[in-house]
């Protein structure tokens, strides 16, 4: 092989190596348009990192109760993984986001959640980096390393109270029956006033 050809192939290899490096790849991705992002090949989830469990401090919470949700993530590798985030989502609302580092083995992370009434779906997402986002529509699926979902029923608070409807009904009854007294009282007031009486 001639020297010229060698240098040519070496330079190609260097370019490939540079392009393959994570920092370059992500900065290239940052500069690309959303449409282009969608066409990028998704990087597969790191197989050594898995969310293995999600537990609740109370398995039958009531509405507005403060619940601690503990997410367990296993790092099957031998090295600490950094630059990761754990995001907790309720259906389509972000509950919380934490930047995490995963040491080899099991890692537990607590999250605090004020329970909303009814059927809830809590999903934990392990993602690369620290996404700068305000809602779930900012996610890019290629950033997701792993997910874990749990459905939970939260007993809603009773609607209203019993006293208000009773009071409302009582008020209506008093006013309706009391209205029969109004003409007499009106007449008495008018007679005392002595001014021109309106007929009732």
């Amino acid at each position: 092989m001639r020297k010229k050809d060698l240098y040519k192939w070496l330079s190609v290899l260097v370019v490939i190596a540079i392009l393959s490096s994570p920092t370059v790849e992500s900065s290239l991705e940052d500069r690309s348009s959303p449409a282009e992002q969608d066409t990028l090949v998704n990087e597969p989830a790191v197989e050594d990192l898995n969310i293995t469990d999600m537990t609740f401090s109370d398995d039958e919470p009531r509405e507005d109760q403060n619940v601690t949700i503990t997410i367990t993530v296993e790092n099957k590798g031998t090295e600490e993984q950094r630059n990761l985030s754990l995001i907790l989502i309720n259906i389509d609302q972000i509950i919380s986001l934490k930047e995490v580092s995963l040491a080899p083995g099991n890692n537990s992370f607590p999250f605090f959640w004020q329970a909303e009434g009814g059927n809830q779906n809590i999903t934990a997402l392990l993602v690369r980096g620290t996404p700068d986002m305000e809602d779930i529509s900012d996610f890019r699926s290629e950033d997701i390393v792993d997910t874990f979902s749990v459905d939970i029923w939260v007993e809603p608070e009773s609607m209203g109270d019993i006293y208000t409807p009773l009071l409302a009904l009582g008020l209506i009854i008093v006013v309706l029956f009391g209205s029969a007294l109004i003409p007499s009282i009106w007449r008495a007031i008018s007679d005392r006033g002595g001014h021109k009486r309106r007929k009732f």
Partner: protein
Amino acid sequence: MMKTVKEDIKEDLKNTCLTVSFELKKHFRMKRMIISFGLAIGLPLIFYIVPRIWASFPDTAEGFATLNLSFVNLLIIISGSLFAGDAVVGEFEEKTGLLLFSTPQRHSTIFIGKYIGALLPTLAVVSIYYLTTSLEIVGIYGTGGLSIELFQSFIISLVYTTSAVSLIFFFSSILKRKITSTLLGFFSLIMILPIIESVLQFLVEVEPWYILTYSAGLITDVFVSVPPIGGGPGGQVGQFSPDFYMGLTIMVLHTLVLFFLSVFIANRRRME
């Protein structure tokens, strides 16, 4: 010769009571009570007999109650129309007012008595409906199936009944024919207001908190552990739900405003 205020009040109350009993007798004779009470017992029985024979009951008592009570609104509208639809207008159209209004009674006393005479049987019909449903719940789920929410729903139904009767009575006081006022009262509650409600919810996407029939959703919404199954007869689940306190306030306001307006307008009508 002129009475004291106390004597005047006593007489007015007595006249009101006389009118109420006369109206109740009229409703009984015209078989309205039989029809309404029959519906109040028969409708819930359908929800008991059909599952027993062909299907199965809902898992929870609250689920059963929600299903059963989704039709109490319809019963309120039917009964209210029967009892209040011709309360005022009938006296003018049939010219029975020529006998009635020339008696030594204040006209307002007569109209208040007519209103109460329409309201009481409608409230009784709703009570019978809930009693029947409660007995069914006890029969299927035991006494543990009776919840505070059921009682809550009952009271809300009674409040809604007063507002529905007020609306129908209002039509009776302003219109000239019995059939028109009865039908307008009926269709306002079963169709016109629910349509306006749906348009506001789904097309304009604003909460129709001031519409009376929207507040009626509270009757079954109080069963919070059961997802809402409908906004009323033929209705669909809306994207909004009535606020508990606002809904009750709207009902009370409708009742009182329409009642006073009806009596005022009826009092100014004359047998011309």
